[in-house]
C-alpha cells in the first residue's frame, strides 16, 4: 500500500449567509483510518461531513481524493458524472435515517444488488449471490432477502444500509450518527459489526457522532467541533483521557458514568 493519505481537506468553509456552518477545517485521512467528528448539535459536524462527501458545495476550500490509480483529484473540479460514479463505487454513505440511504419499497436483496448494477454488473445470479453474501455478513437471515426494508426493525435497516454500501468494496465510508435513535443493545451489535468490518476490510471512515462512547469504540483519531471550528484534534483516547481545550473538558466531564 502506498504511504499517502486517501483524502486531503484544506481550509474548508461553509457559510449559510452570515451564519457559519464550518470554518477553515483542514485534515488528512489515511487508508484504514477511522476519524470521528464529535460535537453537539449545531457544531457544524454534519455540514463538514456533507461538504467533504460532495453532498453540499462548500463556500471555500478544497477536498482532494486519491483515486484508485493514485492520481489526486480535486473533488469539486470533477464533473457531476465522475463524482456520482465515485460515490457509487469507491465511497459509501451510512445515513442516520435509514430511509435516506435505502429504497424502502424494493427488497433487501435488490437494495444491495442495486449498487452492483449501478457499476455495470448485469449477471443476475452473481448479483443475487453477492447480495445474499453481504446480508449474511451483516447478520440478516437469508429468508429476509426478499422482504422490503420497511418491514425491518431500525437496527436491521442500519445493517442493510451497511451491506448496500460495502458491496462495491469502497475505500471510504461516511457515517452520520450511524447508531442514532437505536436501542442500546441494537447499538452494541451494530458497533461491533462496524468495528469488525472496518478493521477486516481496512476501510477508511469518517464518523460523525455526538456520542463520545461511539467515537472511543470506533475511531483512531478524533476532531472536536464547536461553532463550526475544530477546537481539538488527536488520538481518540488521548483526547478523551487528557482533554486540553475548555470545550473538550466540558464535553468529557458531562458524560454520565454507568
Amino acid at each position, binding site marked *: 500500500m502506498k504511504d499517502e493519505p486517501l483524502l486531503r481537506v484544506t481550509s474548508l468553509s461553509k457559510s449559510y449567509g452570515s451564519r457559519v456552518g464550518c470554518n477553515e477545517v483542514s485534515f488528512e485521512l*489515511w487508508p484504514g*483510518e477511522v476519524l470521528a467528528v464529535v460535537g453537539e448539535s449545531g457544531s457544524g459536524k454534519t455540514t463538514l461531513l456533507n461538504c467533504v462527501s460532495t453532498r453540499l458545495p462548500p463556500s471555500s476550500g478544497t477536498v482532494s481524493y486519491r483515486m484508485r490509480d493514485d492520481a489526486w483529484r480535486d473533488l469539486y473540479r470533477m464533473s457531476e458524472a465522475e463524482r456520482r460514479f465515485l460515490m457509487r463505487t469507491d465511497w459509501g454513505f451510512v445515513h442516520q435515517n435509514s430511509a435516506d440511504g435505502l429504497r424502502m419499497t424494493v427488497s433487501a436483496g435488490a437494495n444491495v444488488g442495486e449498487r452492483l448494477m449501478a457499476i455495470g454488473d448485469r449477471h443476475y445470479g452473481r448479483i443475487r449471490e453477492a447480495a445474499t453474501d453481504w446480508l449474511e455478513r451483516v447478520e440478516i437471515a437469508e429468508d429476509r432477502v426478499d422482504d422490503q426494508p420497511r418491514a425491518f426493525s431500525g437496527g436491521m435497516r442500519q445493517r442493510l444500509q451497511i451491506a448496500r454500501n460495502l458491496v462495491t468494496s469502497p475505500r471510504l465510508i461516511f457515517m452520520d450518527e450511524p447508531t442514532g435513535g437505536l436501542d442500546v443493545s441494537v447499538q*452494541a*451489535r451494530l*458497533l*461491533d459489526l462496524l*468495528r469488525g468490518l472496518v*478493521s477486516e476490510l481496512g476501510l477508511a471512515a469518517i464518523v460523525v457522532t455526538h456520542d463520545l462512547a461511539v467515537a472511543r*469504540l470506533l475511531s*483512531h*483519531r478524533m476532531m472536536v467541533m464547536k461553532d463550526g471550528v475544530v477546537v481539538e484534534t*488527536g*488520538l481518540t*483516547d*488521548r483526547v478523551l*483521557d*487528557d482533554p*486540553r*481545550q*475548555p470545550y473538550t*473538558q*466540558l464535553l468529557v*466531564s458531562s458524560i454520565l458514568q454507568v
Partner: protein
Amino acid sequence: MREKDVTMATPLVVSSVGKSFTMHMRGSVRLGVVENVSFSLRAGECAVLGGPSGAGKSSIVKMLYGNYAVDTGQIIVSHHGELVDLAKADARVVIAIRRDTVGYVSQFLRTIPRVAAVDVVAEPLVSRGTGREKAEARARDMLRRLNLPERLWELPPATFSGGEQQRVNIARGFITDHPVLLLDEPTASLDAANRQVVTDMIAEKKRTGVALLGIFHDQEVREAVADRIIDVTEFAPREAAA
C-alpha cells in the same frame, strides 16, 4: 551497525519530560504533575516506578503510551530500528508504535460489547497480521495459564469479576512480543497464585530481551521483578513561581 545495537539495547529514552493539567472547569487552575522526568530502559530489565500515590507514576506510564499529552521533553522510542519522539509523533505514528513496539497493561480492562474474552486477547496478534486461528490458539494458552475458567473464554468480559477482567487484560498485554512493555498495577486484584503466574511471565519477558516498566504496589511482586526502582518523587514539580 553499532548505532543499531545501541537502540536495540536501550529501546526507550525519556528526557526532561514535564506534564501538567489545566483544569478549565475549575477556573483554569494548573496542576503540575511531574517535571524533568529523565530515565532510560534497557532491553531485558524491569524498572519499577516508586513513590506514593499521587506522585505521577500512572501519568508517566500514560505519557509513554501516548495516552496523555506531553508538555515538554522527549520520549524517544526505537521503533522498527528508527528513533521516534513519541511526545511529538502524530496519531498514526503513535498507533503504529502501540501495535508493534510499546505494549501496555492498564489497571482496568476497557470492555467492548459482544466481543468474547478470547477475541479480546487475540486482537493484538490479529492486528499485527497473525492468522485468526493461530492467534486464538495462543490466546487460549494465555488464558489457561492465567487460570481463567474455560467456560468464560467465549463470553464478553463485561460481567467478569475484577480479577477475571484483569487476567484477560494481562493475557492481552503479554501475548505479543513488543520490545517495550508498560505495566500499570497488573497484579492489583489477583490472588497469590495468579500473582506468581504474572511474576513468572515478567521474568520470561526479561529473558527474551523485553524492556519493562511497571507500577506495583504489591511489595512481594515488586521485589521479585524489579531490577531497579525509579523514584518518581525526584520528578516532583517545583512550586509555580506565579
